[in-house]
């Protein structure tokens, strides 16, 4: 029996992968099958987890959580209300009375909107600000070397840009160009070295500085009440750089999670179904 179920799973897996070639009847079959099966699955789960214990059982069987309840009692009415509200949702099948469904929607939308405000404020705003309110004094900095390297590269790039592109791009003398490049390289390296020295002595935590600057930059980028120029414009540009690194990281992370799923499916086909690999 297990082999039959595994074979069904394997054939459906291959049907979905056939879409890589082009849209075809096998893919459409599996696609429609999963729509029906998942709708049926969640319908059964929702009924037995919510509708049956919260409405059907108390209202018709006069039992709540195994305990008997009286017809017309407070608990009976409390169980009847969500049932009536739920039935109101079906008024949309009768255009003349479709507006009645809004009563149930009003309860649902308002209830969840109110339920969400405090947790969202706590988890998404206050806790994030608290976690980012870090000390710039270097206490524990496991990424000091990496941060210094990154800052060193940035400083080197900035020096090169300022000294060569901005001031001396027009110079014709090759020796002067090489000299400027060398000076900027030395200055960049010196800046990197000084930062490394400061970080290793524990005076400042560069990682924490980056966290604070990154957050301020990102928030500045999404602050549309003022024109992005001057300090705000500069911070917004820094924010874009951080956002791009964040998007890149998210993209890479997503790709790897999908590849992990792919490996899982191939392993299912070759190991669980065909027993070709251990």
């Amino acid at each position: 029996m297990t082999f039959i179920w595994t074979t069904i799973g394997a054939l459906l897996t291959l049907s979905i992968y056939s879409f890589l070639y082009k849209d075809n009847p096998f893919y459409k079959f599996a696609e429609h099958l999963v729509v029906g099966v998942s709708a049926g699955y969640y319908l059964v789960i929702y009924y037995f987890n919510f509708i049956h214990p919260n409405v059907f059982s108390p209202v018709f069987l006069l039992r709540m959580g195994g305990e008997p309840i009286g017809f017309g009692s407070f608990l009976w009415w409390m169980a009847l209300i969500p049932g009536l509200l739920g039935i109101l949702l079906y008024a949309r099948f009768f255009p003349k009375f479709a507006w009645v469904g809004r009563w149930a929607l009003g309860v649902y939308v308002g209830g969840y909107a109110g339920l969400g405000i405090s947790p969202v404020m706590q988890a998404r705003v206050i806790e994030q600000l608290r976690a980012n309110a870090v000390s710039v004094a270097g206490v524990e900095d496991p990424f000091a070397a990496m941060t210094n390297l990154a800052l060193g590269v940035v400083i080197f790039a900035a020096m090169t840009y300022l000294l060569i592109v901005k001031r001396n791009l027009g110079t014709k003398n090759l020796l002067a160009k090489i000299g400027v490049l060398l000076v900027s390289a030395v200055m960049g390296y010196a800046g990197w070295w000084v930062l490394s020295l400061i970080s290793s002595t524990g005076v400042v935590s560069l990682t924490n500085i980056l966290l604070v600057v990154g957050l301020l930059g990102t928030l500045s980028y999404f602050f549309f009440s003022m024109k992005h120029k001057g300090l705000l414009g500069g911070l917004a540009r820094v924010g874009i750089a951080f956002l791009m690194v964040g998007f890149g990281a998210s993209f890479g992370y997503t790709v790897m999670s999908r590849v992990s799923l792919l490996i899982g499916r191939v392993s299912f086909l070759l190991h669980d179904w065909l027993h070709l690999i251990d």
Partner: protein
Amino acid sequence: MMRRQIPLALCFIFGVFMTIQYFIPHHSVADMQERILMWLQTLLAFAFLLGTVSLIKLHYHKIRNRADDRAYSFVALAGLLTMIGLGFFHPSHNLPGSPFSQMFLNVQVPIEATMFSLLAFYIASAAFRAFRARTLEATLLLVAASIVMLGRVPIGDLIHEGLPQATRWILEVPNLASKRGVMIGVGLGMMSTALKIILGIERAWMGGGD
């Protein structure tokens, strides 16, 4: 009045109660909050049932109108009715090994996992077309994505032992800073939208008409 004012009033009353109940440490308020939460979950179940009825209607009409792809409508309805039959009329549908759970494990789970894994191919081809290091920002995105992808697989460690560490650094410093900024912005947006809904400023949920 009945068509728009009562739903708005219900939305306001339930919204305000669910907002302030966090700040009233009394057992009667906690009981009421628990009861309303149960109502909301039950309403969600009824709404899901409504969606299923719409799905049945859609495929029924396709079959009745002899649409070209009606064969697949039979497949969808067969899957749905099989699960309903196994769930409601099989005595031990929720036990491991029952036909209901076998259908879930061997039909739904493999198809969904495979569909998500398909994205590995499309996301890679999309990246190949979209990733061009034309600007500094695009270069940052490209470099960060490449490092994270290489740093999370064994070959990354073989290429250079610093790659996994660089991946960790990217995820825990610049990525975290930007994600926190986005999360705070989303949180403030969610709160303001919830307030607008409760106060009746945002009424899109009521739909059009009277």
